[in-house]
């Protein structure tokens, strides 16, 4: 059994009337790259803050490296953090501040320039932090998170302010750290194609609870087998008819047609029913095939139709 770096059970958190988390279960295995995926307001940032010990849950419990994260300096030595918005003392120079962070963690000060170089920010070493652009600040935040060579990096929207080249470089850096230094990552992002390139597992959360969680290959197999792609000239009309079928769990419309998720064992039924429904409502079916599940497709199928239910 792989070791679990994060074990969260039944996490709930409310902000006044708003329920941010509603019994979230989350596990992050050692030596994995897990994507934490969900729509705006699904509870990703709240979950990350609880894992980092910045926020106490109303109920439920979380263990990171087998310890409670709240006010726990030992865990902070092992965890690198990239916040959605980076916050640093604005008047201090980039390299000076990172050298200070080296001294805080007790690592050689040379490491400061090393991490700046690794994120492509070496040219800005003498700039005050307030003079960094949004993208540079994001890179600086990533350099800051890596300074003490953490075993586990938690990143909330790590690539949000970066240009495509910088995103690509960063993904390469994540892959390299994971492969060469066995760093475990928990990455929250909306940019699913990027996540699918580097993640080996994912947890999709919706309405504050985990809807789907697990190894990506297994999830793809599970959902691909139960997902069919239907190409049609009038997706909206056909989708409405297909949704009436009792064995259909979810129908998602995209630019290429429909993704239809069916109950286990009912995969073949749609091949017979879809053409007759199409004929009935007067639309053309251009093709039906077993869906090639992607993270993007999985996300849309699960989140669009979950409404808080688990799949």
């Amino acid at each position, binding site marked *: 059994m792989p070791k679990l770096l994060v074990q969260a059970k039944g996490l709930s958190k409310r902000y006044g009337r708003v329920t941010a988390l509603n019994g979230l279960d989350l596990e992050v295995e050692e030596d994995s790259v897990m994507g934490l995926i969900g729509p705006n307001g699904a509870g990703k940032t709240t979950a990350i*803050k609880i894992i980092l010990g910045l926020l106490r849950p109303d109920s439920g419990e979380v263990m990171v490296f087998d310890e409670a994260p709240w006010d726990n300096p030992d865990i902070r030595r*092992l965890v690198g953090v990239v916040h959605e918005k980076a916050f640093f003392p604005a008047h201090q120079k980039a390299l000076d501040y990172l050298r*200070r962070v080296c*001294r*805080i*963690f007790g690592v050689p000060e040379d490491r400061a320039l090393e991490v700046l170089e690794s994120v492509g920010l070496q040219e800005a070493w003498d700039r005050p932090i307030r003079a960094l652009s949004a993208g540079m600040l994001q890179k600086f935040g990533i350099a*800051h998170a890596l300074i003490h060579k953490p075993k586990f990096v938690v990143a909330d929207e790590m690539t949000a302010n970066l240009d495509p080249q910088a995103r690509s470089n960063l993904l390469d850096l994540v892959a390299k750290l994971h492969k060469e230094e066995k760093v475990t990552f928990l990455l929250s992002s909306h940019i699913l194609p990027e996540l699918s390139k580097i993640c080996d597992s994912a947890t999709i959360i919706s309405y504050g609870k985990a809807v789907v969680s697990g190894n990506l290959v297994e999830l793809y197999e599970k959902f691909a087998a139960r997902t069919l792609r239907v190409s049609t000239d009038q997706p909206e009309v056909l989708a409405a008819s297909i949704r009436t079928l009792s064995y259909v769990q979810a129908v998602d419309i995209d630019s290429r047609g429909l993704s239809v998720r069916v109950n286990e064992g009912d995969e073949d039924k749609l091949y017979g029913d879809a053409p007759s429904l199409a004929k009935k409502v007067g639309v053309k079916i251009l093709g039906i095939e077993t869906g090639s599940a992607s993270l993007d497709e999985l996300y849309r199928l699960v989140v669009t139709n979950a409404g808080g239910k688990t799949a």
Partner: protein
Amino acid sequence: MTEKRKGRAFLEIFASALQEDYRFPILELFAFLYALSSFVLAGFNLMGGAPSEELAVYSLVFSLSGLPLNIFLLLVFKNIAFGLGSDLEKGTVQTIFSYPLKRHAVLTAKLLSAIGVSLLIFFSAQMFALMILASDRILPYMHIVVLAYLANLSYPLLLAFIILFVTLLVRKGGSALVLGIVLSFLINVFSGVAQLAAWMTKSAVPLQILAVFNPAVALQSHYNAFSSIVGPIWEPNLPEVMLYVGAGYALVFFVLILSYDYFGRRLNL
């Protein structure tokens, strides 16, 4: 858990707070103001006419520390409300909480910079002024000097820690500063009302209540008995004054502990 590397998180967070709180020319300006107000406003006129040497020493300390204490408050309000307040508002505290240091140690490092350094400059300026201006008269009465400073500092420290607690609650530098100024004003009004009530009712109770918040009132009444037309209203003796100083600091520490408890156990970011 892996082997712990030795860092110096506390010192570095303290140094970082110093760098943010006292960017040029804040430190230089306030040090100048402390020195200027300590030397220029020393009340030698009060010393000359004092009936006793002890009263003369108290009068000197009282006159010497009046304006510098207001400057101290100004600097501390700025450091706490704008320094710690903006750290909370902008989220810099989130970054600091990613370092291997307990929350109470983070707050201590921040307060050492915000209040400790200001106190150090205040006392340095005051001691230099006292020693240069009247060391021969001060030295035999050091216990009075210490008591006077303890009494005079209690109220500004209480205000500072109330501002700290309010800053932690509202997490907005500007709002905390405004609330602090309003609170100071209200306490000053309350102080005036208490003195007026004592004078009109010839009762010492309003003054005694006031002295719990501000023990300087008790010391002041000890040396210059608070009186109305018909005679003295309150003349606490020195042990009583010490009790009020003790009560004042109990209040100061209560608010400080409240702040630590909130920062350490309840501050959700």
